[in-house]
């Protein structure tokens, strides 16, 4: 029997929705206090969900672990005690740099329980990317594994605020702990499993994700405990999570999708989720859906396009009939992928749109209404988007412009860490300016047009060209660098760098590879240029600014536009 969606009547819901009603569905801590970890896990101990599986974990090596909400609550309380014993306090920044293992989730929840701010880091980050984030946030504690710690070892002397490193040693390797390091397993064995969750207010800072912009280094996007209202409501109505669902989000918790919808959203709805440690593998992914009878699946357009490349025959070998609903996020989902999902997987992918800064899904395609393939969907109830002109005034349907949102939804970011002026600059004329360009049609569906700036979207990861250029020019051979996004059928954009060399250096394939390795090590495997082209000089304005726009136009064979400021 087909299940009724949680959101049965979009127009009615949009008309009548109030965030106050969502607040009543959360338990709160008393005296108006709110803590994400309590809403996600501990409150379920008062109900029959206590013994329900919160997650089923499968490791890359096939090892399986299941944690009930009770076990997850106890483990995270134990970890909260570990942190408290180390001297971590409310407001401190605690970062976790782990593969997708149970200890990552326990660490996130334990950190929130002491009222500290959790910063999840993607395990593919290189040393410089981790250092930048730990330094900027003045992180006090880092939770990591022996392998990942070795990868970034060189940075620790440059982090005066980092007091403790907690080593998670799942494989029981023979390691020696240095000064300032403790064993996760050792500390957890000593700690009590009861903890009085710190009575955080809804405006206390809770989660921090770094995001790239067009200029400068990545900025720390800060969310408050109030964000759980957004996570909970959107997981309920957009992901359409019901009590008996088995949910699988393929996003890593190092990215906001993997925390908002890989931790807080599903668990605040009391739903069991699958956690798979490994990365993309078409056959494995289908086998996970079959083995665990996944009913709701949240993934990304790059992954879907890769599945499409593996062909239509492969999914026929698996029983995917458990799937009831599937969503995607990170980049616009091309219409072909929506249609493929329906034809080959059995259900269409519902695209939705949001950002690190927005904390939760703001525009979506809902189960109850027709998908317009290629569209972001319609606003979530309680959310008011608009398309603005360059003067930040509203445009009518059909016109392209800046996608903007009326501020004040609960999961709206509260600041960029130590960059209040940049935060303030994101709000104009009473609107939050998203940085995306879009248009709205007559039915109220939104359509992505492009970025308003030069930020590159590669496989759903935003990469700032300035970051990559800065890393490039640190290479001894590089004089100047200009970085663009080049369209790619799988990952949307790949990063291409144009580089001029210093005197005495000669272009070669070997030098290209060396430069790529150099940048990959500094930043991450997502952020290094897949293609490098050597030029004698780069097009610059008379003031010396590299004209990325021109590089991109020439690369793509497009009109060059206004070149009046080009240095001749």
């Amino acid at each position: 029997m087909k299940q009724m969606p949680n959101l049965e009547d979009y127009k009615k819901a949009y008309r009548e929705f109030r965030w106050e009603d969502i607040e009543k569905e959360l338990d709160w801590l008393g005296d108006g206090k709110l803590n994400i970890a309590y809403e996600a896990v501990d409150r379920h101990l008062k109900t029959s969900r206590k013994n329900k599986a919160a997650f089923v974990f499968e490791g890359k090596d096939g090892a399986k672990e299941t944690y009930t909400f009770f076990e997850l609550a106890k483990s995270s309380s134990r970890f909260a005690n570990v942190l408290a014993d180390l001297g971590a306090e409310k407001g401190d920044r605690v970062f976790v740099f782990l593969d997708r293992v149970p200890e990552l989730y326990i660490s996130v929840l334990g950190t929130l329980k002491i009222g500290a701010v959790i910063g999840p880091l993607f395990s593919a980050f290189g040393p410089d990317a981790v250092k930048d984030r730990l330094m900027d946030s003045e992180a006090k504690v880092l939770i990591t594994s022996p392998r990942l710690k070795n990868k970034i070892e060189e940075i620790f002397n440059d982090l005066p605020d980092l007091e403790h490193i907690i080593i998670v040693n799942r494989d029981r390797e023979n390691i020696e702990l240095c000064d300032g390091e403790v064993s996760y397993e050792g500390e957890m064995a000593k700690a009590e499993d009861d903890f009085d969750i710190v009575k955080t207010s809804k405006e206390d800072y809770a989660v921090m994700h770094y995001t790239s912009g067009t200029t400068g280094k990545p900025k720390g996007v800060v969310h408050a405990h109030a964000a759980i209202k957004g996570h909970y409501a959107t997981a309920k109505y957009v992901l359409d999570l019901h009590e008996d669902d088995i949910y699988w989000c393929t996003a890593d918790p190092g990215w906001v999708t993997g925390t908002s919808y890989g931790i807080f959203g599903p668990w605040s709805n009391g739903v069991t989720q699958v956690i798979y440690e490994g990365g993309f593998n078409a056959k494995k992914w289908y086998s996970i859906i079959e083995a665990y009878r996944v009913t709701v699946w949240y993934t990304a357009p790059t992954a879907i396009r890769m599945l499409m490349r593996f062909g239509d025959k492969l999914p026929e070998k698996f029983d995917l009939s458990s799937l009831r609903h599937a969503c995607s996020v990170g980049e616009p989902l091309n219409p072909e992928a929506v249609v493929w999902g329906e034809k080959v997987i059995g259900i269409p992918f519902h695209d939705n749109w949001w950002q690190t800064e927005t904390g939760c899904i703001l525009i979506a395609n809902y189960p109850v209404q027709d998908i317009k393939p290629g569209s972001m969907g319609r606003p979530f109830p309680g959310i008011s988007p608009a398309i603005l002109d360059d003067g930040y005034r509203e445009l009518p349907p059909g016109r392209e412009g800046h996608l903007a949102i009326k501020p004040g939804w609960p999961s709206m970011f509260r600041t960029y860490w130590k960059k209040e002026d940049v935060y303030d600059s994101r709000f104009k004329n009473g609107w939050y300016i998203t940085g995306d360009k879009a248009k709205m049609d007559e039915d109220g569906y939104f359509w992505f047009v492009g970025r308003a700036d030069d930020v590159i979207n590669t496989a759903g990861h935003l990469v700032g060209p300035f970051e990559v250029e800065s890393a490039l020019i640190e290479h001894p051979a590089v004089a100047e660098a200009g970085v663009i996004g080049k369209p790619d059928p799988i990952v949307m954009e790949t990063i291409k760098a144009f580089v001029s060399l210093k005197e005495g250096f000669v272009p070669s394939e070997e030098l290209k590879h060396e430069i790529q390795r150099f940048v990959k090590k500094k930043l991450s495997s997502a952020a290094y240029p897949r293609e490098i082209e050597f030029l004698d000089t780069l097009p610059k304005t008379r003031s010396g600014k590299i004209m990325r726009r021109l590089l991109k136009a020439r690369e793509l064979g497009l009109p060059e536009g206004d070149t009046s400021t080009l240095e001749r």
Partner: protein
Amino acid sequence: MNAFERVRAILVKELAVGESEVVESAMLADDLDADSLNRFAIYSSVEEEFGIELDDEETMEIETVGDLVKLINRKITSS
């Protein structure tokens, strides 16, 4: 060039690693930092370079550079 050398050239290009890092025992993920997108690109390049087809079941078992070279040699021999 033998199969290992040709595979090494592909891995150096796709993973931005040094030639000296690509040894038979090197693990694609843990030693060479290959993520799922990298693996996708590597297998596509290998198929093109050697004129073979790799199926998902086979590539799932690949952990090291040596595993990949063995698979390629097996495919070439049997075709």
